[in-house]
């Protein structure tokens, strides 16, 4: 089987340089707007890092316009964010509190940084008991400006427009496993994934129902307390007894298994596709947002290249036969880029399929890349600034 990266290549000159620059201008302006505060208030490190980030994000978008490819350039950004986020986050934790572990006093005072992964678990306790079961502040405070209300509001607005594209353009966890998946030259467990994909892709839904129900029963964010693989590379409750040691063991095992080893062996985003309950929750919004990937059945030759290339197993033979993706499609663009017959196309709901698909792609990418710049861009800038701070000559 051909490797995924080589099969994704298309002719370079999809669009002329001038036209590509024109189409990139809105994103360049948006990037400048996003990082203007950094230039006005911050130190030299962050100014340089912000400038580098603006160039990086704008160049990648230009390449998307120029080559007509989405997946390859998005992946460079996404993997960079995934690997730099823990670096910058851990550095800030150690600078602030001297440890990655969360002291109980910080949890009691509600100073824990809010993570969007907990969002589904908040709904039932908030509805029945008007209680937020996360040790954060609902409104911004001096010590924690990223309030729960603001984060959920921004996430909800983005999700309504872009659906599950959040998981491919904004989630700062998914890039880590996408990185490990891209390190392997070819998948070693491909047959196993194909054989059990119909079961594996249901696991996130089961975990979603489980964490929502149990979180409501015990008034604790069960996913954060017991199941989050990314606790291993962000922050975690201080290990001071058997229970917290078990928690830490689970976090490390899930991270090594689902984020490092299995992505390398399968070339799939195994945590995102086969575990993440937030991803399942996001899938619901794929039903109501404007953008989707469709298949032109007149052009499709059922070669299954798209199915093989999908990093989260969001395609099945049945769904391709119906001309659609499954509900868990993250709109990463891998299937569109790999299709040699141009049968896989971007689509704006309410318009005819395969008529002006590039227009649908452009509309989607403007929204998705603006979101990527807002979330991932700020992460990149902060992490690069942290790295510069540690340069030996400084």
């Amino acid at each position, binding site marked *: 089987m051909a490797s995924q990266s080589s099969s994704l290549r298309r002719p370079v000159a999809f669009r002329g340089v001038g036209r590509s620059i024109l189409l990139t201008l809105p994103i360049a302006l948006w990037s400048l707007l996003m990082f203007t505060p950094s230039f006005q208030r911050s130190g030299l490190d962050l100014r340089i890092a912000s400038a580098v980030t603006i160039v990086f994000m704008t160049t990648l978008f230009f390449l998307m316009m120029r080559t007509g490819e989405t997946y390859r350039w998005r992946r460079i950004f996404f993997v960079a964010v995934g690997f730099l986020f823990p670096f910058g986050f851990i550095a800030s934790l150690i600078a602030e509190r001297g440890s990655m572990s969360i002291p109980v006093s910080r949890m009691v005072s509600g100073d824990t940084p809010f993570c969007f992964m907990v969002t589904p678990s908040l709904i039932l306790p908030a509805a029945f*008991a008007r209680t937020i079961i996360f040790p954060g502040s609902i409104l911004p405070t001096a010590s924690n400006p990223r309030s729960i209300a603001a984060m959920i509001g921004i996430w909800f607005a983005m999700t309504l427009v872009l659906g599950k594209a959040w998981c491919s353009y904004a989630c700062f966890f998914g890039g880590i496993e996408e990185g490990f998946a891209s390190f392997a030259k070819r998948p070693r467990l491909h047959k196993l994934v194909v054989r059990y994909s119909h079961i594996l892709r*249901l696991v996130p*839904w089961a975990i979603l*129902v*489980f964490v929502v*129900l*149990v979180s409501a029963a015990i008034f604790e964010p069960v996913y954060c*307390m017991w199941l989050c693989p990314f606790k291993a590379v962000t922050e975690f409750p201080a290990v001071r007894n058997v*229970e917290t040691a078990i928690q830490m063991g689970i976090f490390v095992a899930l991270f090594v298994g689902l984020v490092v080893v299995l992505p390398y062996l399968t070339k799939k985003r195994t945590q995102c596709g086969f575990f993440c309950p937030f991803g399942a929750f996001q899938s619901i919004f794929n039903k109501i947002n404007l953008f989707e990937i469709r298949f032109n059945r007149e052009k499709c030759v059922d070669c299954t290249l798209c199915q093989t290339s999908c990093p989260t197993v969001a395609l099945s033979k049945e769904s391709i036969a119906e001309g659609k993706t499954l509900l868990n499609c993250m709109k990463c663009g891998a299937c569109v880029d790999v299709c040699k017959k141009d049968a896989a196309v971007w689509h704006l709901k309410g318009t005819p399929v395969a008529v002006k698909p590039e227009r649908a792609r452009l509309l989607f990418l403007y929204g998705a890349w603006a979101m990527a710049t807002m979330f991932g861009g700020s992460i990149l800038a902060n992490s690069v600034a942290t790295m510069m701070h540690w340069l030996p000559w400084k």
Partner: protein
Amino acid sequence: MAVLSLSASAGEALVLGLATGPVCLATCGPVVVPWMMVQPRGVRSHSRQLGLFLAARLAGYMVFAAAVWLVGSSIQRAWTGRTWLMGGIELLLAAALVVYAVGWPHRRCAAANSAHAPASERHGAADGLVRIGEPPRSLRSGALALGFLTGINLCPPFLVAGVRAAQLEHLSAALLFFVAFFAGTAVWFLPFLSMGFVQRTPAVVTVARMVAVLLACWYGFSGVSILIGRTMYG
């Protein structure tokens, strides 16, 4: 006078049940939701299952009411047996969830796996999780077992009701107190009937069974933690 006292305590129990119902809903929800999701679509079948579940839950309440009345006011003291009881019930609940989620190997499975069975059935039986159309007896026993075990599971409002019932003069008064308490909490279970409208596909049933297995792990871990005298949170 005695009748007046009885009706007053029943009224108190009803109000207590209505007031603490959301907590009961949250406590029993993890068991009820996956169980209802594996039932065939339709309000009638869901009403039957919920009725069985609640009837078994009432039976659990009656057993508990009789027990606390016999034990009397000692329920209020630090009773070491309570730890064993709570841990044991959670382990039984875990076992019941596993049994009804995965199911015992039986002849239907073997038949479905045979070469003569339709491909769709072979596929469902082979993964060990998707089996639609359980024998009715198994469905009844599942609702009854899970209802009874959640009925005697010591959730906070249940303990409050237990303490109050233990103070009553007669066993009949304690039983009546728990009947009224049950009626108050049962109202909160009616929204579960809406799950009858959710479409049943093999995927929904598979997810429900996976949830049941995850919950079994959770209750099992919780039960062991209680038995060895540790809290689950540091």
